[in-house]
């Protein structure tokens, strides 16, 4: 019963007792966006902890596939909020990433990359809330240990060169496709809610409801990693698909995990509201609300209020 090659993971090593302290209850699955999207338990936070243990103990080879388990994470810390045993999962992941990078396994997983068409304008370097983007030997690079996959660089890059390749359903195109699908398949559909992942899903985790329970659904919630990542094309898309309104949930002032994602979103939405007004659409049809992390009651209340307001306004003519 002895472990081998442990020393290769010298940053991860300090978490040995934490890895044992995780009681493997799996409560952290709940709402992990990775798990919600892929449905594979091996992508869920518990599996990442198991992977970290496997790497540290030498039972699991540090391959690209194993490394990706760790690099595929949005750092939303929902798992930590749900953990029954106070495990600080993302801190464990960060140290595992340090070791993996030293072994030449750099992801990218969900961390951002830079495409050839980068104009070297440094906008992303300035915007990155985690100082993960820098001007390196190969142009603009990302430090995969520091990157927390917020997607802000993707949103600000004027050349479209900053990308998160493994989006797991949170990319602009995915969200546009999914929200259009909801709007076109539900005659009762009125609103699309884009929730920052820090808000809450007052919703099913994975199970699917019978038609009879969902056919009269009037809104659908789509999760975004940070409100700062929302951009106008995405927010306009539902209106083009006959939505009555769009609601955005962001963290309260000073509580953004990515520094200023929420204020960035608010500014952008203000701009869009004036555009709506100019084309004679009530700007109140596009709203942003502040939801503290995990406040599911408030989130549901805000959604209900928004739907009530839309009901009094009726569809866009």
């Amino acid at each position, binding site marked *: *019963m*002895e*472990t081998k090659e442990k020393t290769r993971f010298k940053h991860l090593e300090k978490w*040995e*007792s934490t*890895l*044992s*302290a995780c*009681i*493997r*209850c*799996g*409560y952290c*699955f*709940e709402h992990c966006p990775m798990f919600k999207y892929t*449905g*594979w*338990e*091996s992508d869920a936070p*518990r*599996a990442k902890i*198991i*992977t970290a*243990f*496997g790497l*540290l*103990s030498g*039972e*699991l*080879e540090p*391959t690209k*596939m*194993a490394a*990706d*388990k760790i690099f595929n994470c949005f750092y939303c810390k929902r798992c930590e909020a*749900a*953990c*029954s*045993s*106070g*495990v600080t999962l993302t801190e464990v992941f960060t140290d595992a990433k340090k070791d993996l990078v030293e072994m030449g396994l750099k992801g990218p997983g969900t961390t951002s990359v830079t495409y050839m068409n980068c104009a070297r304008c440094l906008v992303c370097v300035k915007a990155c809330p985690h100082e993960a983007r820098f001007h390196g030997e190969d142009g603009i690079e990302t430090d995969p240990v520091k990157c927390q996959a917020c997607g802000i660089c993707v949103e600000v890059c004027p050349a479209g060169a900053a990308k998160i390749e493994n989006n797991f359903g949170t990319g602009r195109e995915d969200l546009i496709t999914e929200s259009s699908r909801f709007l076109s398949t539900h005659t009762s559909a009125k609103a699309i809610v884009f929730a920052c992942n820090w808000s809450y899903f007052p*919703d*099913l*985790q*994975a*199970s*699917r*409801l*019978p038609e*009879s*329970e969902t056919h009269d659904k009037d809104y659908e919630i789509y999760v975004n990693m940070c409100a700062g990542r929302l951009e106008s094309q995405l927010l306009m898309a539902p209106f083009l698909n006959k939505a009555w309104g769009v609601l955005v949930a962001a963290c309260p002032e000073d509580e953004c995990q990515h520094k200023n994602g929420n204020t960035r979103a608010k500014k952008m939405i203000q701009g869009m509201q004036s555009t709506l007004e100019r084309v004679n659409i009530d700007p109140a049809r596009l709203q942003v609300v502040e939801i503290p992390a995990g406040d599911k009651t408030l989130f549901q209340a805000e959604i209900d209020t928004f739907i009530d307001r839309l009901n009094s306004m009726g569809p866009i003519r």
Partner: protein
Amino acid sequence: MIHQKGIPMKSVDESKLREIFGDNNVKTDPSDLYAFGSDSSVHHAMPWAVVRPDTTGQVQKLMAYANDALIPVIPRGGGSGMCGQTVPIHGGIILDMKRMNRILEINLPDVYCRVEPGVVDDDLNLALKPHGMFYPPTPASSRIATIGGEIANNASGVRSVKYGATRDAVLGMKVVMPNGDLVTLGAHTRVEASGYQLHKLMVGSEGTLGIVVEATLNFVPIPEYRCMGIANFDHLSHAGGAIGAIMASGAIPSMLELVDSVAIKAVNKTMNLGLKEVAASLIFEADGMVKEAVDYEINKMKEICTKHHGSDIKTSYDPKERAKIFMGRKKLFPALSKYDDSLSSTSLADDMAVPYSKMAEMAGKIHEVAKKNNIIMTAYGHCGSGCMHTKILMDTNREDQWASAKKAITEIYEYVRSVNGTTSAEHGIGLSKAESFKVEKADSLKLLQTIKQALDPNNILNPGKLMQAPEDWVTATGLRYAVHN
């Protein structure tokens, strides 16, 4: 530690699996297999492949193939089993049922619902809530536990004292047998006397007899009123007396929980809750549609607690106050995990049941045995249903602590059996509890094996569990801890 004891890895025909399930629903990379080798137990073993069915037809095809090729198949839900039920001790294919997660029907006039096995317990309750209904067996792990897994282990929880366990809620089911045949068991009615009631046999069979692909479940109305109370006791025996008296009084608690001194200390130490450090606390609850009726039940329980020297008795209908009362119990898991950096909280011998009159004595016995063996054990439990939970705090990196834990557990189970208790009340047997299970059920083991043989002649469904599990759970599989000599 992976040491699969010389079990040769049989070749799984990967292309066959891809043909049945599609490329996106088959995993064979070690990084995935490694994660699927664990559940919430202390065990770990590597499977050979993981597949994810979406339809009953796919499950049937897989079983026909596996039965022919003699490859073990281990059905898996949320992976929240605590005794190694889904750990593939002999390798094989993990059948991850989480994608078969449709709630098929909520039938209010006939008071049943039909669900696929991958439906998460909390999700089912979320779907029933708008109709004023709930599904009561709900274990503590309801946020990830699937209905299939709950059926496999006859799961129950804090409210089972009033509403029963999974077996009481299951009316019928569709099951894929080990040879791929699909059978319909049970009925859609509240009562049935048409023969063997084989659906009840499937409940608690830990995935060794068949694969549930659909279940018909009973549900009940959400009570209008809920009142919770707490009482402190200076002696375990006084709390024990109160438990027995409450259960014998005709009162119907919807919850009756015991929390011992070790648990209270742990919560105080790590969470600073400032709970009074007494020998034991009892948390009791009554619920119902009529307030007077709930008052009646609660007052009865209060009176009994007072009579048995309970003090600091408080009760409340207010949700916030109720949450406060339950806080100590709720924070127990994280408290135990943080109790001491060098100790881990493990699930072993964690859910025995004993007769009501023995609950308190049992808690005392647990403390005595733990002390003798140099480990820390807490006792807390759903004493209303006779179930005692424990957690063992030990240094999981030290081999000698495992030996101590094993000794302590053997002693505790000896006591449990000596007072006509049973090895598992809620979590099942799996691997960790086979030692005591085999002693307890000694005279029916052959019968169990005959049933298994009749239904699964090639022994491919979750082999090596229950009566087939190795006696020594410590060496049954690798342990999921870094154990040093």
